[in-house]
């Protein structure tokens, strides 16, 4: 056993979304710290993975013990402004179904929140919603 590889967890989460959104109809997806210039009147998705609380699960020191690692995924969905919410919710459903109570490579995804409408889209010029969900994985030392 070893300490958790954060990039492995991130790759599991991001890879799942990238694979789904590469399917038809394909939608551009960007991740943390990536440059992206959006095209007006287009649809695109931003996925932000954040690691949060780490908690003791079992007794023990640096070997033979386990921790819980919890994080949150925030996925922003951008669709053309002034065209109603339908296209946005269609993408939202694809994303929601992708993670809802799913377990992949030891990462447990909780039921998602949203898509919730974001009152002040960033960047402006789009209709924006957000899907959020917590996830948990276990670190065995």
């Amino acid at each position, binding site marked *: 056993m070893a300490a958790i590889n954060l990039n492995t967890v991130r790759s599991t989460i991001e890879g799942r979304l990238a694979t789904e959104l590469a399917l038809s109809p394909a939608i551009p997806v960007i991740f943390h710290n990536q440059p992206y210039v959006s095209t007006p009147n287009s649809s695109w998705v931003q996925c932000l993975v954040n690691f949060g609380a780490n908690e003791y699960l079992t007794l023990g*020191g640096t070997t033979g013990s*386990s921790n819980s690692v919890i994080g949150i995924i925030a996925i922003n969905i951008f669709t053309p402004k002034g065209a109603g919410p339908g296209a946005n919710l269609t993408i939202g459903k694809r994303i929601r179904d992708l993670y809802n109570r799913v377990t992949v490579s030891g990462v447990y995804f*909780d039921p998602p929140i949203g898509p919730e409408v974001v009152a002040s889209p960033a960047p402006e010029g789009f209709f924006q919603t957000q899907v959020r969900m917590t996830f948990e994985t276990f670190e065995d030392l």
Partner: protein
Amino acid sequence: MAFYRGQEGSVKFDDAGSTAAAITSTRSWSLTVEKESLDTTAMGDTYRANVGGLISGSGTVELLYTASSADETNAFIEMVNTANDAGAALFELYLYSTTKKITFDGVITSAEYSATVGEVQVITCSFVTNGTITMDV
């Protein structure tokens, strides 16, 4: 002055009562050692008198379910379902390191299995001691 945190503790167990092995994924343990008191107050005494009587212990071990098999962790969580238990199972409860421990033979008297949505699965086993309790704490 040294202090110790809970995660420095551990539990070892052997259902056969010989060589104890670590119980994996232990989340906590507790042991209460009690001594009965015998009233030796004589007629005419002003103050009550007591002497120590029989000593016994009881406690719990809380562990996470790991689906292990053919090891002492598995034996530990199934021991409550053993017929004709002679009370010879060896318990070693460690406070710190591999030497600061409380050792005794005992009987597992209950095991509570549970599954709750959104939480890791926890099993809580209760035990009572059988015979001598050796303290090296």
